[in-house]
C-alpha cells in the first residue's frame, strides 16, 4: 500500500463533474507526477488532498489515516506540505522570519502562546531556520524583506519552508509556472537534490513536460476528471490514449 491512497473520489461543482472516480496510489519515496490538460481536475484533486475541498464521495488515506474532514493545518501537521502555484510566503516578514515560522509550527504544534520570550533568543529555532536557508543557498538574504525577492527565490524560500517541517509528502502545484528557463532548470535541480537527500515522497502537478520527464518516476494522466493511465515516463510518452488526450493536443498547438 502506498503512502497516499485515493479511492473512488468524486467531486461535483453544480453541473460539472470535476472528478469522477479517481483512483491513485502513490508509493513511498517516489516522485509521482500528475499531468493533464487544462480543466482535467488536477487542482481539484490536489485541493481534496490538503483539506481545502471535501470530496463528495470516496476516501483519501495518508499513511493509513483518512485526511477527509480535517482542516488544512491538521493535515499539514500529519506530514503533508504544499507548495503553491504562485509562491505563498509571508511577504511582510523577513526571509529568516519566514523560515522560522514553519520551524515553530513543527516544534510547538498548531498554536503556541509564548508571548514573553524574544524570538531571536530561541537558538534551536534560529539555528534550524538558518541551516535550512543555507541549504537553499539563501543565507545571505536572510534579513531581506521576502516580498522583494525574485520569483525564483520566492519559490526556493517556499520549498525550504515546506522542507523545514520535515514532511513525509511534498505536494507541488506547478512549481515552475511562469518561470524563465534558467529558473525552471534550477528548480528541477533543487527538487532532484531534495529527493536524493531526504526520505520524502513528492507529488508534482505540472504542465511543463520537460520538468515532468526530468523528475517523475511515475506519471498519472488525468483527463476530464478521471485518471486515464498510470505508468512510468517512458511508457506514458508512447501511450496512444495519452497522445490523444493530452500530448496530441499540445503537439498540434
Amino acid at each position, binding site marked *: 500500500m502506498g503512502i497516499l491512497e485515493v479511492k473512488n473520489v468524486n467531486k461535483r461543482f453544480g453541473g460539472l463533474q470535476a472528478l469522477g472516480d479517481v483512483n491513485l496510489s502513490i508509493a513511498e519515496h517516489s516522485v509521482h507526477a500528475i499531468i493533464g490538460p487544462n480543466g482535467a481536475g488536477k487542482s481539484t484533486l490536489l485541493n481534496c488532498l490538503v483539506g481545502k475541498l471535501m470530496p463528495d464521495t470516496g476516501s483519501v488515506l495518508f499513511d493509513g489515516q483518512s485526511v477527509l474532514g480535517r482542516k488544512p493545518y491538521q493535515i*499539514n501537521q500529519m506530514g503533508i506540505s504544499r507548495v503553491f502555484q504562485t509562491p505563498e510566503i509571508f511577504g511582510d516578514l523577513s526571509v529568516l522570519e519566514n523560515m522560522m515560522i514553519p520551524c515553530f509550527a513543527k516544534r510547538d504544534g498548531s498554536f503556541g502562546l509564548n508571548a514573553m520570550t524574544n524570538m531571536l533568543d530561541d537558538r534551536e529555532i534560529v539555528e534550524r531556520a538558518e541551516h535550512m536557508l543555507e541549504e537553499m543557498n539563501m543565507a545571505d538574504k536572510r534579513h531581506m524583506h521576502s516580498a522583494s525577492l525574485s520569483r525564483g527565490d520566492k519559490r526556493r524560500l517556499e520549498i525550504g519552508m515546506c522542507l523545514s517541517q520535515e514532511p513525509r509528502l511534498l505536494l507541488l502545484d506547478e512549481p515552475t509556472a511562469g518561470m524563465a528557463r534558467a529558473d525552471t532548470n534550477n528548480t528541477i535541480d533543487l527538487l532532484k537534490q531534495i529527493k536524493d537527500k531526504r526520505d520524502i515522497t513528492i507529488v508534482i502537478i505540472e504542465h511543463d513536460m520537460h520538468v515532468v520527464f526530468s523528475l517523475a518516476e511515475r506519471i498519472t494522466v488525468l483527463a476530464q476528471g478521471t485518471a486515464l493511465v498510470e505508468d512510468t515516463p517512458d511508457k506514458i510518452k508512447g501511450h496512444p490514449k495519452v497522445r490523444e488526450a493530452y500530448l496530441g493536443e499540445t503537439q498540434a498547438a
Partner: protein
Amino acid sequence: MLGLTKKDFTMFIVVIVMVALAPFLLNPFPQGSSLAQMFNAGYPDLMQRFVIFGILVIGFNILFGLTGYLSFGHAAFLGVGSYSAVWMFKLLGMNVIPGILLSMVVAGIFALAIGYVSLRRSGIYFSILTLAFAQMSYNLAYSVLGNPASNFNLTNGETGLQLLLTDPRILGQSTTPDGSLPVTNFFGIAMRDSYDLRMGDWLFTFNAGYYLCGVIMLISFYISIRIFRSPFGMMLRAVKSNQQRMNYTGLNTKPYTLAAFVISGIYAGLAGGLLSSMDPLAGAERMHWTASGEIVIMAILGGVGTLIGPILGAGFNEYFKNILSKINDSVLHQWLGFLPDGIEDFLVTIIHPFVGKGWHLTLGLLFMIVIIFLPGGLVQGGQKLGRKISGRSRRDAAKAAEQSKSAAE
C-alpha cells in the same frame, strides 16, 4: 536589558522619561499668560487622559497593527471596564486596585465572547460584526440594563453609573465622617491628590492619579514590546501577511487572532477601569461607535503596527481636541485684536467653524493631512525628519572633510 534589545530599551527609557517629566514638558508657558491658557496641557485631568488613551491604543495596536483585524467596536471593552470598576467602588471599597483588576477580567471575558463570534469572518465583515456588538452593548447600557426604576439596574442608563452615599462598600466606608462621598485611592493615596511646584512664574502639578496611570501605561507598553518581539507576535504578523500560508504551515490562525483580540480587549478594559478610577463615573457614551472610531483614528494617526505610534497618536488626538475646543470667539478677538476691525471680524467669522465646538472639523483636517502625506502616521513623519537631519549632517560632514582636504593641499 529587561529582555529587550538595545534599540527597544532606549525607546522604553525615552518613554519613561517622557512620562515622568510630563508635568514639565506639557507646561512650557508661565502660568497666567494667555499662551498658557491655550497651550499648556500639564493639568492632571488631561495628563491622565493622555496615558489612559495611550494604554487603550497600545492594546488596540496589538490587534490591528499585528494581525490587521480592524475592530470597530473597541469602545465596548472600554465601557465594560469603566462600569466594572465603578461597581467595585460601590460594593467593595474605594481602593482602585480591585476595580482595575475586575475591569480587566470582565473586559477579557467580554472580548472572548465577542471575538469568538466576530473572528469567524475577516476584513470588512469582521469590522461590521464588532461594530454591531459594540452598538448592542451601547444600547444595552443606555436603556435595557439601565432603567433606574427596575430592580436590575446595572448601568443607570443615561445618567451614568455613579457613587451614592448609600452604597455598601463593605471594605470601606459608605460615607466619610463629614457626610460626603469617599474618594478613590491607591492604598490611602487619593487619586486627586496633587503637589504643586512653583518655579518663578511657572506652576507644575504632580498628580497622584496621573503617576499611577503613567506607571501602568509603562508596564502595558513594556508588555506590548515583548509581545511584538516574541514568537507569538511574529505569528500575528504572519496572520496579517498570509493566512493561506499559515494554514498550510500547520498553524491554526483562529486561536492566534482570538488571543490577540482578548489581549487588546483586556488593555481596553484596563483603560476603562483607570478612567473610572480617576473619576468614578461611567456613562454609556464611552461605548458609542464614535468612541470606537476615535480609537481607530488615534491608532492610524500615530502609526499602525509601530510600537510608539499608539502613544503619539493618543497624545496628538487628546491634545488638539483639548486646545481646539478651548478656543472661542472672544479668544480669537483677543488674538486678532491688532488688526483693523473689519478684517478682524472677517477672520473670526472664517476661523469660527474650525474651533470651539467645531474642533472635530480641524481634527478631521489634521487627520486627513497626516493620512495623505504620512500614511505611516506620525512615526513615519518622525522617521522622515530623522533621515533628513542625519542625511544633512552626513552631507555636511562630507563637505567639511572635503574642505579640510583641500585646505591641507
